[in-house]
């Protein structure tokens, strides 16, 4: 497929095959969800927990494959149970690393066992680890949509309390907010978001959608809502561009393109924007005087 000069026909061409439609649909939902949930992950400093949840999901997905069930159910089950367990066992977000790491290593081991027990081909394992956005069925899209709608609804309800307790858990607790419950809700949000995002970027590359866009957004905006919008935009642009490049350009894995684009944004903000910003602030100050 070659790019033509007509942008509209190029866009239509992207939607020509069902596998591309499904990829774009699921990719869009996942990017929106990951961008939103990711902001809370970054604000709560729970990126290690998010990382671990995806690995716990790997064991679940490998187990599901072993029992000939769709991997996403294994992912949902394992990340849901694992996430709640993390929230309940260690209620203080900041001190969870050691517990999480312990469970994470065990779960990866379990995943390896399931893979070795599974006699079939290893392509499914590969797609769980690195994502298989071009292999998404219409049923997967519906499931992704349902999960996405549920996450959006839950976030709309808990947004304010979750935002405050993520920002300042001690004061939130002192003011009588249900921080323990919010911790569990948060982990379940991450669990579901991780489970659907695995289809797009895989267990190992989940950071590129769940953490990096939000981390970039946090550098750019000092209001939560603006930051969430930026985070979603970055995730969306990376997903769409990644898919388009893989379609028109060299046929390398889509998840490679997505992670590279997100990393590019990160470098740009980290090293270029941060140098430029003090300068513009300085010039603005000069103008005022």
């Amino acid at each position, binding site marked *: 497929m070659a790019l033509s000069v007509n942008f509209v026909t190029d866009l239509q061409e992207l939607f020509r095959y069902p596998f591309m439609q499904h990829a774009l649909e699921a990719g869009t939902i996942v990017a929106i969800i990951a961008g939103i949930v990711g902001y809370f992950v970054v604000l709560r400093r729970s990126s290690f927990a998010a990382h671990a949840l995806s690995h716990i999901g790997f064991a679940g997905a490998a187990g599901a494959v072993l029992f000939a069930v769709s991997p996403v159910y294994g992912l949902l089950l394992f990340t849901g149970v694992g996430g709640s367990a993390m929230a309940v066992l260690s209620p203080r977000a*900041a001190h969870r690393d050691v517990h999480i790491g312990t469970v994470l290593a065990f779960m990866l081991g379990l995943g390896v066992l399931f893979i070795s027990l599974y006699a079939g081909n290893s392509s499914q394992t590969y797609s769980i680890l690195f994502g298989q956005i071009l292999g998404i069925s219409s049923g997967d899209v519906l499931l992704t949509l349902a999960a996405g709608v549920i996450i959006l609804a839950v976030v709309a309800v808990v*947004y*304010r309390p979750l*935002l405050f*307790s993520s920002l*300042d*858990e001690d*004061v939130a607790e002192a003011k009588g907010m249900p921080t323990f419950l919010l911790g569990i809700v948060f982990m379940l949000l991450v669990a579901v978001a991780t489970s659907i995002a695995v289809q797009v970027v895989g267990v190992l590359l989940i950071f590129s959608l769940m953490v990096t866009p939000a981390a970039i957004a946090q550098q750019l905006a*000092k209001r939560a809502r603006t930051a969430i919008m930026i985070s979603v935009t970055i995730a969306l642009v990376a997903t769409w561009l990644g898919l388009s490049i893989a379609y028109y350009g060299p046929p390398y894995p889509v998840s490679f393109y997505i992670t590279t684009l997100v990393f590019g944004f990160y470098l740009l903000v980290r090293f270029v924007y941060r140098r430029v910003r003090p300068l513009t602030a300085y010039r603005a100050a000069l103008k005022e005087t």
Partner: protein
Amino acid sequence: MPQRHGIDSETNIESLELVRLAYSGKRWGFSLSPQDREAALWAMRDVGAEELAHRSLNVLSGGELQRIFLAEALVSRPDLLLLDEPLSNLDLKREKDLVQLVNRVVRSRNVTALLIAHNINPLLPFLDKVIFIANGKVATGKPEEVLTSESLTDLYGVPVEVLHDSRGNVAIVGIEQHHGDE
């Protein structure tokens, strides 16, 4: 107001948003409302932090942060303000400023403040009641009753002296034991 906050150099959120959330964060739902903006600005004005409203938390100094945290605690109009070691990271000037600020705010709003401190001296001019805890023993009462050389020496188990200077200032100091001083 906890001794240590989770907020650090990574927290790029403007202080107004933190104080607004402290006001309305308890309610479920999505958007921040004009009321919480009003309440937040009013609390920030009371602690002399209105010019910090649109600054990000990660660029504020320790003293500025303490004022924001005080506004955060005050904004929901509590009856009791709990301040855990609010003076622990401040220099002498800021320490004095903060104590005076807390005193002013607490009296103008009719709020009870329970302030925990290791060093009682900067607080002495403003105390209504003291609960002194040391070595598993407690002494409680009005400052002039509790803060005497005898009761504090008894409490700490080491000699302590309450000094009064010519201007009426009071200071509490531990006394070196001089052996063979007789």
